[in-house]
């Protein structure tokens, strides 16, 4: 049962909206991170059940984080991006994430469908 979620996105206003959206649905936002380094530190510190992970981050891409977390048996990862799944080809499947949601289609239901 996924309860605690880490939000990783470099756009602060988006993180705020995502937090409200998840909290409205009963999730606990374990933390927020703006780049890969912060995200990896937050996973280690807060051990969330799931990570809502933006693909395009300032220091690296979300795929590398998803791959690293999968390899370490870490939390479930849901990738989000303002681009389409089509723009990333096979990388989404290959990185070991639970799934991908275009940011504009992000909803608690879509998130739950992938992590539960």
């Amino acid at each position: 049962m996924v309860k605690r979620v880490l939000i990783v996105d470099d756009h602060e206003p988006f993180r705020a909206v995502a937090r409200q959206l998840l909290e409205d649905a009963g999730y606990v936002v374990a933390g927020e991170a703006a780049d890969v380094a912060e995200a990896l530190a937050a996973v280690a510190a807060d051990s969330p059940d799931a990570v809502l992970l933006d693909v395009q981050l300032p220091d690296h891409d979300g795929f590398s984080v998803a791959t690293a977390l999968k390899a370490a048996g870490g939390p479930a990862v849901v990738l989000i991006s303002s681009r389409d799944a089509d723009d990333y080809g096979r990388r989404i499947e290959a990185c070991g994430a639970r799934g991908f949601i275009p940011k504009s289609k992000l909803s608690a239901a879509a998130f739950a469908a992938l992590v539960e």
Partner: protein
Amino acid sequence: MTASTLVAFPHTGSALRDPVLVLPVVVAAGLGVGWLGADAEASGPRFAIDVALAWGFVGTSLLALGRARWRRTRILLGASAFALLAADLRWARSDGLWTLGFLLEALWLALLVHFVLTFPEGRPWSRLARVAIAGAYGATLGGQAIGALLDPRPRDVLSFAANQRLADAVDRVQGSLGVALSLVVVLLVVRRLLLLQGAARRAQAPLLAAAVLTVPATVLWLVWVIATGESDPTFETIARGTALLVPLGLVAGVTWSRLRQTEASQLVVELQTEGAGSLRERLARALGDPTLDVAYPLDDGRYIDAAGQPLELPQGTNRAVTPLTARGEEVAVLVHDPALLDEPELVESVRATAGLVLENERLAAEVRSQLAEVRASRARIVAATDAERRRIERNLHDGAQQRLVTLSVALGLEASRSGAATSGTLSRAQDEVEEAIAELRELARGIHPTLLRDEGLEAAVEALARRTPLPVTVDGSVGERLPDAVELAAYFLVSEALTNVVKHAAASEATVRLEREAAMLRVVVADDGRGGARLAADSGLAGLRDRLEALGATLEVVSDPGAGTSISAEIPCGS
């Protein structure tokens, strides 16, 4: 850098005024008159041969004058002629002249060795050659001087220590030294013959070969001296006679070069009728120098080859640089083996006959060079455009798109939180924003496709195929990643072609084929539609043609009415 000017050398007018050459002529004339009153022992045939030899040497000296690099050798040739005649002073009635003739008897041999081993530039070929020359002078002049001291004959005015046995021994030592030196000369000449190449070999080989041929007769004469302790007049005359082979070799070399020159002229006539593509090769053949390069000057002082590629003129002495001018203007520069400087007439004849072809070739090379610059500049413009496109796509994504996405999610959230009254309005607003995001995304993709950059051509084309509202099959493979410009051109071609299929072709399906063949990427987009498409000047494909041409690619459209359309491009993509 060795440079030569293409001015023909002055002819025999100035050569006859050369004192070195006039001297033996005067001596020969004097002896001719003096022979009438010469000693009874005097040999008519021997004297006739000597006069002929002297004239032969003098005549060939005139030839040597025709070549700038050979001019120093005329002194030695003239001196040899003089020495050959001086030996005949032994038939003079005066004892003093007899002794002088005795002293100078074999000097001609030393001078000939000196001439051969310093030919053609007047410097000894090597240290061993220098030693051999010094040895030759020592054995001839020194040997005869000692001989004069010991010789008991009454006519010898220097006979201060007359001793027949010792004099014979000196003769034998002198002969042995001569044989040894002859062998060294053969060794040096053969080595030189093997080292020479091209024009130099042509001009010098006959003389060197002649020098080798004279050795057996000389050795025979000297061996006789060693065996008997005295010189045999017959063998000596034969040895002196064969010496004429050396100047004859000089003549043969010059003649051979001249024949080559005629051949070169014929070749150049050929040049003017056939295509000028291989001008360099034909000139190289005409001049007998396979290493020949032709450089063409640009106005800014740089040089280019026939293909328009920049070329540096060599510095240093192992390559010679000869400018070819027409009407006072430099048309081309030959970069060649310095030995060609021995045949200025040859180069001159090439200049005279190939001048027009060279001038045309220079203009063509200049155009090619400019074309290469334009191509490079076009490639730079395309690359700069691509970089700019990438920046715009990134800005759209990071800026407007990001904000709209946040707005859309916020609207969705508010719609779910609010009551039925406002939720409809909020949902409609969210739909509008979604629409804007989709349009923006499509725009960004058209500007610069992220997938292409991250995943390569195949993945990007497959994504294009999926988004096309028509069944599209993608086959073939391109292997590893290709240069950015190539991938972008191929991607935009497929994108534009598929857009046209959807808009105009009324096709039921399309195929995209990507093939990599060595250094060529082949892209084909075909459909089963109505055909009859043309490459209109204002179409998107025509715009793409510039991008393709900047890469040296070709674009072909085959579209017969009713037979579908096939658009193919071949893009060079490095190795």
